[in-house]
């Protein structure tokens, strides 16, 4: 875990912007793959008694090739751990650690599902399904928790309580999405993809694929509306609602086409159903990103501020080095004074802050002290409100201090 944390670096603003779509893309690969592996195995197990060949074909929608399982199952999960860790760098709850902790469960589950495609053993397949589901529950909940920063300080233990409405809703959305894409994948692989196209059309396989897609399309609209209704305040947005409508429309489109094909035993529009199914899953994951973005916008803003503060200190150091050697421009002091100081201070009278006539003598022998005060003001006199930090550079502060002493000196004469 410590090694993981050492490998995660603080992100910059541009970095954060790029990471959002990359996260959705990787999530899309991973969730689609795990969903297809899971649902196709369940379908295959259910059809074992009915028809052996059909059962094998259902499972082999993802071929038993180790490279495919590694590239689409294990690698994206590893990448997700880093992406999540980096996006949430410095936040209280260790999401990357939690993901890394449940990742072995996914690897074991996916390995069992992979093994099932070689020996078609009931126990291996069943174990794979259970292990993958056991991983999916905390996984979807962790991604749901990303949109609930108010919960972060209170999540305990590392993998949190998964028995709540939000987690259940997200798990059902994951299952509905998996049904959709499994149907889509079966249609695409066996009816479109030239290398693996079935020599003779198998109506059973086609009907099962269409049925899975239709089930997903029926469930998804209700589930996304439910999810939108129970979102916490900070995560609600018009963008999310737009995505909800978009997803309902997409589900209606894919469901209608699948229903038509089922009722008429048609073979047309197979590619359309497959495409729409995958687009719907992508849309749902993007919606979840919108929700997250709305909810943790505050946190990201803070991160940006931290990065800006860090850059400002670097700039200040540079300025200080430069200021030590360069003569202070006398005109700059007057200009900055007029812009930043004159709204609250005057030489003789109290405005918002005290008159300079009263406070400047304190700094007479120590201009540096005045420069420090201008850079980092603190409340001194209870009779006045605290002076805010003005965000001046050290050079500007020096110029202003110089200008004030010049002016003060002049007025005293």
């Amino acid at each position, binding site marked *: 875990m410590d090694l993981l944390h050492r490998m995660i670096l603080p992100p910059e603003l541009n970095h954060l912007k790029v990471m959002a779509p990359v996260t959705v893309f990787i999530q899309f690969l991973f969730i689609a793959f795990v969903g297809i592996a899971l649902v196709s195995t369940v379908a295959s197990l259910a059809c074992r008694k009915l028809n052996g060949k059909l059962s094998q074909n259902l499972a082999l929608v993802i071929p038993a090739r180790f490279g495919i399982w590694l590239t689409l199952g294990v690698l994206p999960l590893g990448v997700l751990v880093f992406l999540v860790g980096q996006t949430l760098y410095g936040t209280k709850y260790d999401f990357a650690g939690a993901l890394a902790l449940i990742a072995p469960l996914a690897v074991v589950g996916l390995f069992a599902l992979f093994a099932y495609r070689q020996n078609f053993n009931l126990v291996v397949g069943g174990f794979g399904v259970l292990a993958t589901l056991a991983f999916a529950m905390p996984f979807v909940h962790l991604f749901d928790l990303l949109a609930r*920063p*108010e919960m972060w*300080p*209170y999540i*305990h233990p590392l993998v949190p309580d998964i028995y709540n409405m939000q987690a259940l809703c997200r798990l059902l959305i994951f299952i509905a999405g998996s049904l959709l894409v499994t149907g889509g994948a079966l249609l695409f692989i066996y009816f479109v993809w030239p290398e693996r196209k079935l020599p003779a059309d198998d109506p059973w396989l086609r009907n099962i694929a269409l049925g899975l897609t239709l089930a997903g399309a*029926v469930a998804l*609209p*209700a589930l*996304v*509306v439910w999810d*939108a*209704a129970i979102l*916490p*305040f*900070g995560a*609600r947005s*018009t963008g999310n*609602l737009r995505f*909800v*409508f978009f997803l*309902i*429309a997409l*589900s*209606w489109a894919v*469901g*209608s086409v699948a*229903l*038509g094909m089922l*009722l008429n*035993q048609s073979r047309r529009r197979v590619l359309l159903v497959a495409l729409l199914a995958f687009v719907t899953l992508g849309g749902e994951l993007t919606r979840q990103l919108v929700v997250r973005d709305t909810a943790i916008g*505050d*946190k990201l*803003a*803070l991160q940006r*501020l931290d990065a800006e503060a860090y850059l400002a200190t670097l700039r200040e150091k540079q300025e200080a080095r430069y200021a030590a050697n360069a003569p202070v421009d006398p005109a700059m002091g007057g200009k900055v004074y007029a812009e930043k100081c004159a*709204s*609250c201070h005057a030489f003789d009278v109290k*405005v*918002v802050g005290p008159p300079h006539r009263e406070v400047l003598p304190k700094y007479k022998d120590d201009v540096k002290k005045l420069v420090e005060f201008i850079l980092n*003001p603190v409340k001194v006199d209870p009779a*006045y*409100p*605290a002076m*805010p*930090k003005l*965000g001046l550079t050290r050079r500007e502060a020096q110029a202003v201090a110089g200008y004030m002493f010049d002016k003060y000196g002049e007025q005293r004469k």
Partner: protein
Amino acid sequence: MMPALNKKLLYVVFTGWCVTAAVVAVAVGVHHRNRQARLEQPIHFSHNIHVVKAGLACAHCHTTADKSPRAGVPALSVCMECHNKVKTDSPEIKILTEHWNKKEPVEWNKIHEVPWHVRFTHKRHIAAGVDCAVCHGEVKTMTQVHQVRSLEMGWCVQCHRQNNAPTDCWTCHK
């Protein structure tokens, strides 16, 4: 093959299901918007500008947080300490000045509210070192304040347990 009528019926049922989902989504949107409307304040005060940009501490305006049960919404005079000179041309400050001239307080909407049977006190929480953001969220980055914690009993008790604070009923309910 199914009779044509049944086929049509299935289409209608599925379309009806999707339309119902869309209608419920509209209702959810309207409900959320109504909740949002209750957060509107008479003046668009931004904590972000005052805390992050101007560098003021929470206690600068909420002066009674560490002394009394209430954190206290600052009096108009506190605002006017600075705003009799600062940003006087802003339309929001003009509203503020109008209130000040008429000697009428600004009626802010209360966002964080616990039920009447809860005796919450800011003083004790501040004394225990609880940061404002634990209960109020990152208000400093908000342009409009909203409630981010549930402020429900379970939430309070969870924190009390974790920090070994008393969990007797009469700690909060008198």
